[in-house]
């Protein structure tokens, strides 16, 4: 089948949204499909938004047997066999309207623009043969704002067989971009309150040096140097596989994320218990407290208590890790499921 994968991008910025597209391309090609990847520029500028939206309507992809659209506003592309794997709206016109992230005034011009965006989006989404999303959170938003039903299709990670469990050391790892909304600082602060021998390793590249400096400052200020390691650098895939294979458990505690996040799925494939917080959003679709990990209040003391329990109870850490792996199957997080559904 000739399949066009359509998404949008900002040149020279490697956003995570490219992973889902490029991994799917690889999996489809392995199955013998002829795939064309189409990334079109999109800028969230209110002044030019309508013109940019019109552009998507004028693209002719009729030569493809099927198109699959991802990042906004690629869902506006017109095609008789359009499938959406919808990962988010232009959020400032949707769930972030009533938030400090809107970035423009709540006046009649922008309200009219919002209404027009909603109307056009809804029409284009309803053109699709089938609408998938990457999470329950996004499906709920589609229902609330556009009145559209959708099916959650969790994005798997690439070549999940690479991840494995070699044992359980005394370290909790947090492998992820180092950013304020990923809240590495909350974990570091939690380490002030642990009573066991549990250790913490935070690794990932910081997009902003001042946040990384704040983390190392926290470690120094509280004398945590012997139990906390901060590695502010790009971690290779092989290093990540090794870290997850040996660790005691993995943390993923972003603030109100849309989806469960690749770090938590990778840790699950490695058979490791997950630690997250009650306000982490989509991560809660994956993690159930006391089952495949812990879901605790976003407070240093509560996090510390959960870390101590994993350290003190080796059987619990192992059992939760096994459940983490099983949970992936329960949620159908696999490429075979994804391909079956997208090509149905």
């Amino acid at each position: 089948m000739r399949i066009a994968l359509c998404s949008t991008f900002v040149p020279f910025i490697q956003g995570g949204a490219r992973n889902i597209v490029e991994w799917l391309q690889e999996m489809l090609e392995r199955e013998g499909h002829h795939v064309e990847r189409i990334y079109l520029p999109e800028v969230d500028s209110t002044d030019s938004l309508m013109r940019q939206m019109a552009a998507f309507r004028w693209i002719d992809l009729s030569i493809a047997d099927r198109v699959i659209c991802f990042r906004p506003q690629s869902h506006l592309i017109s095609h008789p066999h359009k499938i959406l794997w919808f990962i988010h709206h232009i959020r400032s016109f949707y769930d972030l309207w009533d938030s400090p992230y809107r970035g423009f005034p709540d006046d009649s011009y922008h309200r009219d623009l919002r209404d027009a965006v909603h109307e056009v989006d809804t029409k284009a989404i309803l053109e699709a043969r089938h609408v998938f999303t990457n999470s329950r959170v996004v499906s709920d938003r589609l229902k609330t704002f556009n009145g559209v039903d959708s099916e959650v299709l969790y994005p798997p990670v690439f070549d999940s067989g690479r991840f494995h469990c070699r044992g359980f050391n005394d370290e909790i790892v947090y492998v992820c971009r180092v950013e304020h909304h990923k809240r590495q600082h909350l974990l570091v602060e939690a380490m002030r309150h642990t009573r066991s021998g549990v250790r913490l390793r935070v690794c990932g590249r910081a997009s902003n040096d001042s946040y990384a400096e704040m983390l190392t400052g926290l470690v120094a200020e509280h004398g945590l140097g012997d139990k906390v390691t901060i590695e502010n650098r790009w971690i290779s895939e092989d290093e990540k596989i090794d870290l997850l294979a040996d660790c005691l458990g993995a943390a993923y505690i972003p603030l109100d994320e849309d989806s469960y996040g690749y770090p938590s799925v990778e840790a699950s494939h490695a058979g490791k218990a997950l630690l997250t917080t009650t306000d982490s959003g989509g991560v809660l679709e994956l993690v159930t407290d006391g089952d495949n990990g812990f879901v605790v209040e976003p407070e240093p003391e509560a996090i510390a208590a959960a870390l101590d329990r994993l350290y003190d109870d080796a059987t619990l850490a192992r059992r939760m890790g096994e459940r983490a792996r099983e949970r992936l199957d329960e949620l159908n997080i696999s490429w075979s499921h994804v391909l079956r559904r997208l090509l149905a």
Partner: protein
Amino acid sequence: MKVLVVNNMAPFVWGGAEELAVHLQRNLVAAGHESEILRLPFQWEPSTGIPAQMLYVRAMELWNVDKVIALKFPAYLIRHPNKVLWLLHQYRQAYDLFDAGHTNLPSGEDGDALRTVIRGADNEAFAESRAIFTNSEVTRQRLLKYNGFDATVLPPPLNDPERFPGGQGEGYVFAGGRVNGMKRQHLLVEAMVHAGPGSRLVVAGPPDTPEDAVRLQELVERHGLTDRVRLDLRFLARAEYADYLNRSNAVAYLPFDEDSLGYVAMEAATAGKPIISTTDSGGILGLARHQSTGWVVAPDPGALAGVIDAAMVGARKGDDYGRAARELWQGLGIDWPTTIEALLR
């Protein structure tokens, strides 16, 4: 500098222009820049859909890009304050191919309106560009004739010149590259009927259609040339192709009225091989000069037979011509570092 290469995409088709865009991007990175390729889908059938696709390219918004290098219609319609064109081609069916009667545009008023729209948008894009380069003199002349814009010729360099060091000739004329009627390998096979018994020919490359292959095979069999003409009609790995070329006495390349210098001739010159071509081969004559860098004769088997023989026996003359071809080529300064520098100047 963040340099975005903007090219067309005919979905599910990969061709020479795509290959060039990839090498341009790689060489920009090698020169210390950040570079990505933006490929914009373009579907020219039906032709009535062309204006909508011109509009979508024009309506796109670019951000986080310092410079755009655009290659083809309609990709070059994209708006950017720092845009240069490296024009591979315009929509020829609205220009020279229209004049020649080869067009998919409707006749009458509708076709005239489409041509007006295309020319108008083209002229606007040319006027707003910081600089215009073309891939060949032919493209430059077309642009000048139809749109009144001058340009600098910047031929695409070879991507792997290191594969063509040359070497001792082993007694054959080599004809490489795609095999089809326009490239006229059949003239060379026919020439072998008239050539001396010591002359040998190797034709190697992918035939465009099965008929192109059958035509050559039948010629060889009919004239009993199987022991002097070798046909290797398939897609060759670059190493195999280069090996054939490096071990040849001379390289024959006689396409009909080609736009550019031609990769085959550029590779021959890099390897220091004399070039055999014909008087109507167009751009190839930029490198093939009669009795200087090789032989340029009329496109007929008799004339070609004479120069194939000359390439066999006149080894010393062939060496001189080959050296001259290499010197002429090197004097043109067509390499990636120079090209990148010109595009970003």
